[in-house]
């Protein structure tokens, strides 16, 4: 599973990334967490508000800093 944190490196992106890492650890799954910071890539993904979260290339949330439980819920749908 690939989890992408989309946003150009503001503090909110870092907080979302922390939630994602915690969610992955809590669920005990294998996942690659990567950051998408290039604004052209961000736009190409269809993201208008950052930070956004995509799982396996599918955009799941944008403009919100989710907590670990919320990210975990999104991950479970994709498992």
């Amino acid at each position, binding site marked *: 599973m690939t989890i992408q944190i989309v946003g150009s490196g503001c503090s909110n992106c870092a907080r979302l990334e922390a939630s994602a890492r915690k969610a992955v650890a809590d669920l005990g799954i294998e996942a690659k967490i990567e950051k998408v910071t290039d*604004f052209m890539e961000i736009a190409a*993904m*269809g993201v208008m*508000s950052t930070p956004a979260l995509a799982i396996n290339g599918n955009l*799941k949330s*944008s403009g919100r*800093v989710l907590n670990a439980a919320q990210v975990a819920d999104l991950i479970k749908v994709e498992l």
Partner: protein
Amino acid sequence: MDPFSPIQSLVDWLVFGVLHLAKTSPLGSALDFFLFDSTKIVLLLVIIILGVSLLRTFLPPEKVRASLAKMPRFLAHVSAAALGIVTPFCSCSAVPLFLGFVESGVPLGVTFSFLVASPMINEVALVMLLGLFGWQVALLYIGSGLVVAILAGLVLGKLKVEKLLQEFVLKNLNHGVRQQALLKMSWGDRWSYAVNYVLEILGKVWLWVLIGVGIGAWIHGYVPTDFLAQWASKDKWYAVPLAVLIGIPLYSNAAGVLPLVGALTEKGVSMGTALAFMMAVTALSFPEFMILRKVMKVRLLLVFAGVVGIGIIITGYLFNAVLP
């Protein structure tokens, strides 16, 4: 009744009663001003930003752009500018927002109306105006900001500036909406978003508010009234453009600049000049231009800044003419 009068009484009691400072002394007057204004502004920041960010959770740009693309042109300009009020301008999302609008078929001029209103009508500036000058001036600030944003967008739309966008933006014009994600938000989510946003903004501006109110308090207590009138009263034609020029490099510190402006108007700077100054502080900024440079060619940036700048200057003159 002024809802802040209990705070004023409390501050008066503290400064004049407990500390025994004379009401007419510069120190007493400055300290009273500082304590009352900073308390009032922090309270207003909490209330207004909480309200605006709750409202924002109902208007995600992904949802709004579809309606903007379909609306009659003029209505779309008005709505885009109004949307700009509740959307904070953040350097991290300016480019994705811009691209997200134009690719879904929102006309470029309408996108510009949004792009002008979003940074110009800034919630922190709004709170400062409300706290320092009252609701009439705050409404005037919103109203004139909307008008400048709508007109600037209409003008830029007419100018046919599409060819001055960066190449890759042109390729994406009317590309169609790509995937988008809208999670359902419960009221709990909305509140937690709003509270977090208030804390984030307070964390960023509290020091500037204190410094700004502090300098304002010093001017209030120590600088003679009408001291600045000789340079900045409304019969000086150059006051408004000069205020706009000074405002451009002061971008990030709206919170610190506004209390200062508040004190300056007491000392003879006219209201139109002060409003133009504030709009220039929030709407025209170098960091914003550096970000927009990624989607626009330099010539378009200059046209954009020129149209907005002229709009602000006209607003300043207009208020100087109609306000007492």
